[in-house]
């Protein structure tokens, strides 16, 4: 069974982001970039499926600038077999990403596509769902457990108030939630071996996809500074404030 995994290059989650002075976006100059954490979970799940003998080949795809190849190499070091880089310096919004991935899916014909449920840069949480719609595949989003059984995949989903388990016919789209697994780190010998794994490069034009943004960003602002708290004299005053000022009880 072939598994396709999509990974995205984003600002490293440890970095404290700064908004550009002209409010057009986040400042990326000299900022450490890394694989989106949800995508790491997607790669890990695919590698585990391969270790279990369920998956036979893992193809990893990334859309982005030349440097996104670093994230593909990381995935290859973690256990993916080959990479596809859709190279573009354009801003890629969810729909464009989904269309590009659809083109890759058409070409690769994977039985299972695993994506992160969202990327930590824009937090859109759309690409997996859009891809499922475009490809006409069933979707299991926010997966906390994935098990493949014959031509079906059972996905346990984290939803408000509990867990929902869905059974999907393959080929299918799965998006990962935080608790699906704990990603490994790549061993150094595997990093060396990853250098020799194939990495093919393509472009949106090659795939016949128009990636022109459909949304316009008006303004990006840092969250408001948290205001200092106040001290209350006693429980009575606290309850009074919660009731009448904050109106939470």
């Amino acid at each position: 069974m072939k598994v396709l995994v999509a990974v995205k290059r984003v600002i490293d989650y440890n970095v404290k982001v700064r908004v550009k002075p002209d409010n057009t976006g986040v400042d990326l100059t000299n900022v450490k970039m890394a694989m989106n954490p949800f995508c790491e979970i997607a790669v890990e799940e695919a590698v585990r499926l391969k270790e279990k003998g369920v998956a036979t080949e893992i193809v990893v795809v990334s859309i982005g600038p030349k440097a996104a190849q670093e994230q593909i190499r990381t995935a290859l070091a973690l256990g993916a077999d080959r990479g596809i880089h859709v190279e573009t310096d354009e801003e890629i919004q969810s729909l464009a990403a989904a269309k590009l991935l659809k083109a890759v899916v058409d070409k690769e014909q994977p039985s299972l596509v695993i994506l992160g449920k969202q990327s930590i840069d824009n937090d859109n949480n759309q690409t997996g769902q859009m891809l499922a719609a475009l490809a006409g595949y069933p979707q299991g989003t926010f997966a906390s457990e994935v098990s493949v059984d014959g031509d079906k995949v059972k996905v346990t989903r984290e939803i408000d108030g509990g867990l929902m388990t869905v059974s999907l016919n393959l080929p299918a789209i799965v998006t990962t939630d935080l608790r699906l697994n704990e990603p490994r780190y790549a061993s150094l010998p595997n990093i060396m071996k990853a250098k020799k794994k194939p990495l093919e490069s393509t472009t949106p034009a090659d795939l016949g996809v128009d990636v022109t943004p459909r949304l316009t960003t008006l303004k990006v602002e840092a969250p408001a500074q948290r205001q200092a708290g106040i001290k209350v004299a006693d429980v009575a005053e606290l309850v009074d404030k919660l009731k009448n000022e904050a109106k939470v009880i």
Partner: protein
Amino acid sequence: MKSTSYFNETHELARDTCRQFVKKHILPHIADWEEQESFPREIYQLAGEAGILGTGFPEALGGHGENDIFLKIACSEELMRSTSGGLVASLGSLDIALPPIVQWGSKALKERVAPEVISGQKIAALAITEPSGGSDVASLKTRAVKKGDHYLVSGSKTFITSGTRADYYTVAVRTGGEGHKGVSLLLIEKGSAGFSVGKKLKKMGWWASDTAELFFDNCEVPCCNLIGPENAGFLAIMTNFMKERLSLSIMAYMTAQMALEEALQYAQDRSAFGRPVSKFQVTRHKLVDMATEVEIAREYTYRVAQLMQAGKNPIKEVSMAKNFATNVAEKVTREAVQIFGGMGYMRETTVERLYRDAKILSIGGGTTEIMKELIAKQMRL
């Protein structure tokens, strides 16, 4: 992309792995391990599995990235982020014990010993220093007398890193006459008859590292455990020192780097007389001086590493790097403790440990004074 960097994409990936290794397996426990003056043996196996121990060794022996010095540097820098020079020294004792075996040992010897050590199943240590002397290697007294197909070794070694729990010891012995021409290297194995290990030595710093004295009383060592030709050990020891000195330079600027980072944070968080202490010019300038020296120590070490990578033999430069970086480590950790004030004297702060750990760096692997003599010799003084 970063054309001025010494590190490539592979180095950065390896760095990420080491960082995650430290974060996952070491940082949550290191304060306890320092107090217990030991860390679990399992860490060697985990580091072996991650390929961290194999960095710089031949692939045929289970290593990778042989002759890639900056790969080694990237890994060493991240291991130092464990904040424990002692753990790094013990975990890395193979880096001084194995190279002579790999470079000069017989095929049978290296194929038997190296893979077990590189995979973290066994621990290797280097034993040169004796109670009667360390710097004066050519005068070492431990004697090995050939008798049939084995040597009988008598004498003792001290300050041996990984001394209490190593399985293999690369030991400098006297097989010939006086002076450096009578020195050989022997692989002595744990459990050999006549070999005993003293108790763990109590130290100023490097608490997590096990350091011990070794005793040989007519210890029987098979002749096939000889590393390289007989009486040619001095060259092997001196060659080995080069890499050890580079490692110590790295440990030194990383010790300083971490102390600087801790002090920067503290100086901005801590207020006195109505403002953060970093807003006082005296503190601000102190931090600037610290940062300047750390950068110079690091960049110069990179330069020396680059020379080594190019196949040069920068004896003078590596000695200068070691002296400069270890001096910076002592100075910067001292100033960091000073910026922390009373808090810096408390064992719960990292700067307290860094301050204690810095001192050994200008002593081990050749003292500052020995380094200066080497430099003077290169300057034809």
